[in-house]
């Protein structure tokens, strides 16, 4: 079917662009390789956990940075978690911001931290949109009777 082939090409190109633009890195490939017939939804499951976890962490970070006296160790602990989870799914740009964020925590630099919070929120929402688009494309392919291109 023409449309399936077109969709499959769209997906391959889309994923390639996400890598090219640095949204995703090699770790995302690793996740895809762990998906198979016995674990058909593995990537979606892990990424969904990431979304949930990230929302929670962003809330905690906002709260922690609103305090009169900021507990930088607490802030750092949250950023460390965020860095870990983003790295585990290959969300490269989010991870990079987290690294800068941690440096500001170490310096106890409030302004730097607030700036990073905005940046990490932004990068997170970008990669979330991209991944949701990716999953939508995959759904369309499967609904049209096609199979997902091998990674």
């Amino acid at each position, binding site marked *: 079917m023409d449309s399936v082939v077109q969709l499959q090409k769209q997906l391959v190109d889309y994923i390639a662009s996400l890598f090219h633009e640095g949204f995703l890195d090699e770790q995302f490939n690793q996740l895809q390789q762990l998906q198979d017939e016995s674990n058909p939804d593995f990537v979606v499951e892990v990424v969904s956990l990431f979304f949930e*976890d990230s929302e929670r962490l962003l809330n905690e970070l906002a709260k922690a940075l609103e305090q009169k006296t900021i507990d930088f160790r607490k802030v750092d602990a949250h950023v460390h978690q965020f860095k870990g*989870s983003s*790295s*585990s799914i290959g969300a490269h740009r989010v991870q990079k911001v987290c690294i800068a964020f941690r440096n500001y925590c170490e310096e106890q630099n409030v302004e730097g931290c607030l700036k990073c919070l905005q940046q990490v929120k932004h990068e997170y929402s970008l990669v979330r949109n991209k991944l949701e688009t990716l999953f939508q494309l995959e759904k369309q392919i499967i609904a049209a009777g096609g199979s997902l291109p091998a990674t």
Partner: protein
Amino acid sequence: MEYLHSDIADHTQQREKLQHFHVLAVDDSLIERKLLERLLRESSCKVTCVDSGDKALEYLGLLDSQEIDRSTASSFCPQSSTQEGLKTVNLIMTDYSMPGMSGYDLLKRVKGSSRKDIPVVVMSSENVPSRISMCMEEGAEEFLLKPVQLSDLKKQLQPHLLKLPVHPKIDMTTSNDNGNGSMIIDITMNNNQNVVVSKRKTMTPEPLERRPQMKGLAVI
């Protein structure tokens, strides 16, 4: 000693072997636990995940309260083994940075306990040389950087595969060479009781040699 003639038999037996290889995975992050569990199951291991060092100690039967119970029990029945009721764990893989008990603390507790023979691998997202040497000095088998990849894991598990005792279900029969050349796996035990595995390809049929079986030899 038997010669195994096909890679398929080799691979199947490897997978069988590892199905009895039980890994205790310790990480406070749900995402990490899910990933590690998938990686380990992909490597055909049995996996148990816990989210803290305390839960790991509890699972291993190393909480103070558990150790007291066991010594009380054995003082009533001196014949009973302290190993009774203890779950078999072949490898512990733990994250380094965890709230409460860190992976390093867990490592220390295990290495100072009756279960010190269980190898412990520590994982961390941070490449800190002092942290790495601290863990290695405390007896960690390996320090892996996260995110852990399947190839890292397979490299980790390889030597453990060779050390496991022969499982009674493993079929020791060989197949006849079909004349197209095949892979022969030589398993020998050297003077230091180390298992040495080597592979060689043969291009012509070789006569099957029968050698006396050695006890306790791990056969793939």
